[in-house]
């Protein structure tokens, strides 16, 4: 039977020759993690239901502290301490508050590789599709089970194909390509499905751009979105994992439930207005909307490439008086490189820029500040649901648009 990427990965991890969409299988997990939010519940389930050893394979099991870095509330301080104690007891590795967003760290350290299966208490675990791996966010019971047994069960999802073609240029970026895809697919167009991306526009994306695209799978209802490797990404992954990469590719005649195609020729900067990430408009439609703050960061746009885009815009310019500019790099590696390469210098000279240590930043727990009543923020995160980042209004944009707008004091795609 010809198989799609997700079918091949699930077959390989369930010891079966062939599987198809709809099959429910026990699959082996290569890496499992819990965060400083869901982690304490995972530990609670393990202690309540099992005897030691609580963890089947501590070397493939991780805690990632990325939501509150360092612990900003007493609740988080207690949680992180509890997880560290459990880690000491069991040998589980901890990515502490200095490391950054868990999924990104797994990629950077070469822990998750193409064709792998990884699960964690994070609804954006499917970011790992950026490197051709199956990542899945799950509840604390499922993750406790994965800690204990190294397995999970999963229903093989059907796959849809999305072809993205055409050339575009700065100031349009991978984020705008992602918005173009979301506009086409909608908030439930990928519901319960895996996505396989193809097309020259996707092929050209850097690893950072791929992470941006993969990070919005959840907001389209999708299970995971696979992006085929290019040479640059392959070299990066081989260098980091110290091993040859074996990419999982679909069979030629694999079955797809749907095929879509998105044109991005001459793409212009886009924005997702409240109340949902798929409410996509072009920036020019809303050009001139006054803003109070911008946030650049999160698992969507907190990569080095995004900081470079910000620096490109801010160099020699000033952030408009009254606009607050918050930046949180996704990981320590990104953070260190931004300092080393002088980006931070550019940010500081531009004024009003807060550069905080790595993690989820303004996304979930307000680590890099929240949005007050009546405030309008441009944010590079992946969700703008009412109330998620505070009572104010959040418009999702690319890092480039965020920076250009911060200079003007209003939403603009021109720089």
């Amino acid at each position, binding site marked *: 039977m010809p198989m799609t990427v997700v079918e091949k990965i699930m077959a390989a991890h369930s010891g079966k020759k062939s599987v198809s969409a709809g099959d429910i299988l026990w699959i082996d997990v290569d890496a499992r993690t819990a965060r400083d939010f869901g982690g304490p519940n995972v530990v609670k389930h393990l202690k309540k239901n*099992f005897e030691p050893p609580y963890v*089947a*394979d501590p070397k493939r099991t991780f805690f990632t502290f990325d939501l509150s870095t360092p612990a900003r509330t007493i609740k988080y301080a207690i949680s992180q301490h509890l997880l560290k104690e459990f880690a000491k007891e069991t040998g589980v590795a901890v990515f502490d508050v200095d490391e950054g967003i868990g999924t990104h760290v797994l990629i950077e350290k070469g822990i998750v590789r193409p064709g792998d299966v990884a699960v964690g208490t994070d609804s954006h675990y499917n970011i790992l599709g950026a490197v051709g791996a199956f990542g899945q966010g*799950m509840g604390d019971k499922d993750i406790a089970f994965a800690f204990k047994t*190294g397995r999970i069960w999963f229903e093989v999802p059907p796959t849809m194909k999305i072809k993205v073609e055409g050339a575009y240029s700065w100031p349009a970026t991978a984020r705008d390509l992602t918005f173009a895809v979301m506009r086409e697919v909608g908030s439930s167009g990928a519901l319960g499905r895996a996505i396989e991306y193809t097309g020259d526009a996707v092929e050209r994306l850097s690893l950072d751009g791929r992470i941006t695209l993969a990070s919005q799978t959840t907001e389209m209802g999708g299970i995971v979105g696979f992006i085929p490797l290019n040479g640059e990404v392959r070299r990066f992954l081989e260098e980091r994992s110290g091993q040859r990469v*074996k990419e999982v590719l679909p069979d030629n005649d694999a079955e797809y439930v749907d095929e879509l195609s998105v044109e991005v020729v001459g793409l212009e900067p886009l924005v997702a207005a409240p109340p949902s990430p798929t409410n996509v408009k072009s920036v020019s439609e809303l050009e001139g909307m006054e803003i109070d703050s911008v946030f650049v960061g999160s698992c969507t746009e907190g990569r080095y490439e995004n900081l470079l885009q910000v620096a490109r815009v801010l160099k020699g310019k000033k952030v408009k008086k009254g606009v607050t500019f918050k930046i949180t790099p996704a990981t320590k590696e990104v953070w260190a490189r931004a300092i080393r390469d002088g980006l931070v210098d550019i940010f500081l000279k531009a004024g009003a820029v807060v550069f905080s240590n790595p993690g989820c930043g303004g996304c979930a727990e307000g680590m890099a500040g929240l949005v007050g009543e009546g405030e309008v923020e441009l944010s590079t995160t992946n969700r703008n649901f009412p109330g998620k980042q505070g009572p104010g209004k959040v418009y999702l944009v690319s890092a480039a648009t965020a920076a250009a707008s911060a200079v003007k004091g209003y939403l603009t795609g021109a720089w």
Partner: protein
Amino acid sequence: MKPTVIKGRVWMLTDDKGRRLDDVDTDMIYHNRYLTVTDPEDMKRYAFSNLPGWEDFPKKAVPGDILIVGRNFGAGSSRQHAVDCFIALGISAIVGESFGAIYKRNAINSGWPLLEAPGVFDTDLKTGDVVEIDLKRGEIKREGELLIRAKPFSRVQMDIYQAGDLFAYAKTSTKASPPPRSGQGRNG
């Protein structure tokens, strides 16, 4: 071994005109007001307490009854209460046109029989009828006659159901079955 054929009286989840109710979300099933409740005896009182016309379901349902629901049942949040309240009531199985993905996961993980039977509302099945459900074969019969086919239990679903729940299964699987094959699927 737990029974793989379940017999019981059915409740068809419809509105007051007898029309199938679709997209019943977890807030209608179990309102977030009661999320702090942990005692099953308490929990069962709130099943459907936020679904107009169905508020008195906990009083009318009898242990062993079977619930038949429409499309996308259990969409919305991941709350386990929306499954546990029915287990506490003794509802022996749930059959639906389709389910929200997380709801399905929670039900299977709790060892609560859940079957997908697209078209079940197109049959002439009505509330009060008694049916027999064969979990293994995915057959739903009334008075010995096949009414509709559901997707049969997968091996996974049966393993967890027989063990009791996901955690109980983990205990048997590490003792009785071969150890997890962790990592073997890893390519390279």
